[in-house]
């Protein structure tokens, strides 16, 4: 066990995978000598050489396209996209190619590739260093979408993603990169994909969240507990696709009151799918409207980013709304 930040846990996960498996490669912009703009790949080129961790030209299309080729021919590429906001030049390679290769070739060609990228607000990055695009990927059949919220899960989910036979979008909450530390086991271990984590117990209501919103929601339910003595459950989804739908429906059924939280814009955001699943399968158990706490349906601002992003107080308001309904 060692006490690591989330970004150190990612770095540890990459090193662990590369030590165990020669075919694991890391590529992306500035991942080499510089170690990545957030230092997630620090030391990899030194330890594994520039054949296994290498800088690429400034082309996300190239990074993912080449990654797909490497993956189809026996390698396990881990591609870094410097900011999730800059992934769109590669959208075609991800959505048209990586996600559909197995299907369209009847399994003859497959893409065991991980795409790591920091997402979300909180660093004063404005429109293009703050986005949360998970819904674009969660709507894309053939992809898996993973979002860790603790150092332990970051390493365990990353190792599970690298071992996965299909392409995985690994979205890292950059707001948590250095703001939280946690115990991380040495060496290799995995956290199963498509499993949720119950962060706090309680059945007055359930809050579904992921990534950087997990600590925000935890703070909110702690205050609710203090102020109203009500125990609210927080569930960290961890894998957005394929989602553990049974778990979501069980939590919703047993609590009867649901709040869904994410920092991405609301309209057609990931939270909509959670609400829809519940409204379609367990609506009869709902004792209140299904509330959403999200970013606004605008681009991401800079000076006022903290008024854009959901915070504990906004989550508390929603919890109180469903409790008092």
């Amino acid at each position: 066990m060692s006490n690591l930040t989330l970004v150190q846990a990612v770095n540890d996960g990459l090193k662990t995978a590369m030590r165990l498996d020669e075919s694991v490669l890391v590529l992306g912009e500035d991942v080499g000598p510089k170690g990545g703009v957030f230092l997630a790949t620090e030391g990899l080129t030194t330890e594994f050489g520039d054949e296994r961790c290498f800088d690429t030209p400034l082309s996300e299309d190239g990074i993912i396209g080449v990654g797909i080729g490497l993956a189809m021919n026996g390698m396990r590429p881990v591609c870094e996209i410097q900011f999730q906001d800059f992934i769109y030049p590669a959208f075609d390679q991800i959505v048209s190619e990586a996600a559909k290769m197995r299907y369209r070739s009847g399994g003859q060609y497959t893409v065991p590739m991980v795409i790591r990228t920091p997402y979300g607000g909180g660093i004063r990055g404005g429109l293009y260093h703050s986005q949360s695009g998970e819904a674009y990927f969660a709507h894309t059949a053939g992809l898996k979408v993973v979002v860790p919220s603790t150092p332990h899960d970051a390493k365990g989910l990353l190792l599970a993603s690298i071992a996965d036979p299909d392409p995985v979008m690994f979205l890292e909450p950059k707001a948590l990169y250095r703001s939280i530390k946690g115990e991380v086991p040495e060496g290799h271990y995995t956290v199963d994909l498509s499993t949720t984590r119950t962060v706090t117990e309680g059945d007055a209501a359930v809050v579904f969240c992921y990534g950087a919103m997990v600590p925000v929601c935890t703070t909110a339910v702690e205050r609710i507990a203090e102020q109203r003595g009500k125990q609210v459950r927080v569930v960290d989804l961890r894998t957005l696709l394929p989602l553990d739908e049974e778990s979501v429906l069980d939590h919703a059924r047993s609590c009867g009151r649901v709040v869904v939280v994410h920092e991405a814009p609301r309209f057609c955001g990931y939270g909509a799918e959670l609400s829809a699943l519940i409204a379609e399968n367990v609506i009869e158990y709902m004792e209140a409207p299904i509330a959403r706490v999200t970013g606004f349906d605008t681009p991401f601002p800079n000076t006022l980013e903290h008024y854009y992003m959901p915070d504990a107080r906004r989550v508390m308001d929603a919890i109180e709304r469903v409790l008092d309904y």
Partner: protein
Amino acid sequence: MTETLQIIDPAGKRVGTAPRLKRETLLRMYRAMVVTRRLDDRCLKLQRSGRIGFSIPNTGIEAVSVGAAAAMDAARDWIAPSYRDFGMMIYHDVSLEAMMDTQYGNSEDNARGRQMPVHFSFRKPMPFLSISSPIGTHLPQAVGVAMAMRKRGEDGVCLTSFGDGGTSSLGFHSGLNFAGVYSAPVVFLCQNNQWAISCPLDKQTASETIEIKGEAYGVPGIRVDGNDVLAVFRVVSEAVKRARAGEGPTLIEAVTMRMGGHSTSDDPTRYVAAEQLAEWAAKDPLKRIREFLLGEGVLDPAAVERIEAEADAEIGAAIKAAEAKPRPGLDTVFTDTYAELPAHLRRQRDWCIEHYRTRGEGVSEEGEFPL
């Protein structure tokens, strides 16, 4: 203007030094071109008669596909073809029945009837990367495939083929750039057939040639007569040799002409001038190699007839076999989305099969559907 390598002139006369090739190899190339020409023709007819949904004319460009494929070693190389490369698979003895299974999208189609016709995907006898509709996406993929071989210390090469329109795609830019930077063992083969659907070359790019685009990436370029199968074979062989030796990628521009429509959905008379077709008809690649081989005594009129007759028989048999196969099972709508069906897809599959069973439409595993 860069000159264009030619070995056999339109009349079939030798004008350059032909590569030293065994008699069997020459015949194998010729045979592949004959089969390609005739299979293409049959597919267009099958589409017109409504028996397959779609096809892509290959007439006029056979020398590019076959000449290039002949330069590749099935034992260690990969090919990432375009949808207009029937000849590449035919040269490497992919079974015509397997190709027709994709044309029909039947239960034995490698793509399980999920892709449109002509979007082939084979692993044997050598890897033919799954063909995609989006243009140019396979170029950086080919670079990755090639880099993987280098990283493992293998000496394989990846050939990738695309059209003149493909040079405008994202994948062309990122593919050639990455290949140049990493000196990847890739051969980029542009089948310059003058048209991208209805867009003529001069509206596609203002560059003097396509071959010259290699300069932008530090990738040597060369231009070859795409209707001269021996010339294509030679330049691709030389590029493969360089790549194997670790000397990096090459961009080859094979100048040819799309003699048919873009696809069976296209009416080229709306935009292609009759003169242009006539001019190119005189340079027909199949006639050219036939005349050459007859002159060299590799072929005689009897052999010509025999090869055509064999081709027709083989094609006929493949069509008959493919047509007889049922449609894929309903479960193939769901399988291969992931290595394993996740819970939500299991639910959707079970619901789907049950729903259509109650409607009396389609039984999953057996893949039988009432007409």
